[in-house]
């Protein structure tokens, strides 16, 4: 039996975010500025150009789209008591 991650119920759900450079639309969630969950679909993964190049990395354009969605409030950052988003490095 597959169970649901209760953090999605108690904290907040995954919400749609669209990549700015490709047609990929994913579901994303941020528990804090530096935490990110991304649920892809097969269609989205096929649409993204960057995934094929580096399956270990997250598409850079999508990363910034999620960051922008968080800043714009389209997706909620559950715990805002984290550093100012402008100081967050874009890559690890």
């Amino acid at each position, binding site marked *: *039996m*597959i*169970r*649901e*991650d*209760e*953090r999605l*119920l*108690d*904290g*907040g759900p995954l919400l749609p975010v669209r990549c700015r450079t490709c047609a990929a639309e994913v579901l994303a969630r941020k*528990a*804090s*500025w*530096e*935490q*990110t*969950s*991304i*649920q*892809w*679909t*097969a269609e989205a*993964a096929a649409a993204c150009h960057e*995934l094929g190049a580096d*399956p*270990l990395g*997250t598409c850079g354009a999508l990363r910034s789209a999620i960051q922008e969605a968080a800043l714009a409030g389209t997706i*909620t950052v*559950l*715990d805002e008591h*984290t*550093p100012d988003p402008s100081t967050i490095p874009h890559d*690890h």
Partner: protein
Amino acid sequence: MTAVESDAIRRIEAEAISSRFARGWHCLGPAEKFKDGKPHTVHAFGQKLVVFTGGDGKTNVLDAYCRHMGGDLSQGTVKGDEIACPFHDWRWGGDGRCKKIPYSRRVPLRARTAAFPTMEKNQLLFVWNDPEGKQPPDDVTIPVIEGVGRDDWTQWRWTEQIVHTNAREVIDNVVDMAHFFYIHNSFPTYFKNIFEGQTAIQIMKGKSRPDARRDDGGGKGPRMLGNTSVAAYHGPSFMIDELTYHYEGYDLTSILINCHYPIDENSFSLHSGIIVQHSDKLPAAAAEATAEKLSTFILAGFQQDVEIWKNKTRIDNPLLCEEDGPVYQLRRWYEQFYVDVADVTPEMTDRFEYEIDTTRPVESWEREVEENLKRREAEEARA
């Protein structure tokens, strides 16, 4: 958004463990071990199996129990390309068919036993388990490991042990960042998981812990700064970990295997393997010594897990904080190996990424390391 606090007592839930075993390639260890011309007994997938290499050099895996009168083929003898039963000498081929009964004119109809597909890769022997009895698809395989068999890498250093718990416990480690600090004396600073198709990846970076006593030179030799690990399960049981240790001035490159096969639903055989790359800083002999040391270190790490597993309970509904990894999504991925191929759903295989915010864990662990060092200093001053 914060959920309402609840006064209800959280109940631990655990369904009965199914005795269905994962579909996929399972590693039985270095292939060489099974090429001694003798039958080997392997308890796996709730059964007793016989592993033997015939005169033709092919390693085969059959159900150990002879279809004649139930003799144990793994106590028998390899004769030519076949395994001969110790009870009445019936000869069984690697394809599962009885080839000959020396004292009979004819082999009866229906003289066919269960044969498991095998594969040799990276100098390791793999056996295919499939509750649906199908052959392994061509695209479901184990990747080639570049350093294996090369003379600028060490040979496999292999360990195995039996662990008395369900194999899901070892899988859960893929997402469990915090346990690396609390039970393995590591210090994760970066942690990300990616699940996609039949792979589950863990990317982890860590720094060394000055408060952890390790016999890695302690002052003499170069200082270890940290490590980078990219570890991936390929299927339900075989993990390849590209593990790099960063030392002052150079990197140590190694490949670590962490794999298992289920013996039954309450136990599994846990294996580890390691190869280390030679380098200017690490010529052949030093690389061997390092591999040896790492192997011991990994075994100690397994022991730390085993100690927890021995005493913990199975839990289907772990209660997670936001700094925990994606346990539920990992188990959703893992489920694909326990259902028929026709019942694998996109949610089990669609790409999922999860990066932990390590800000708070790192802060808290730095404080803890600091305290440990102070306490040790005080103890040493007293002594």
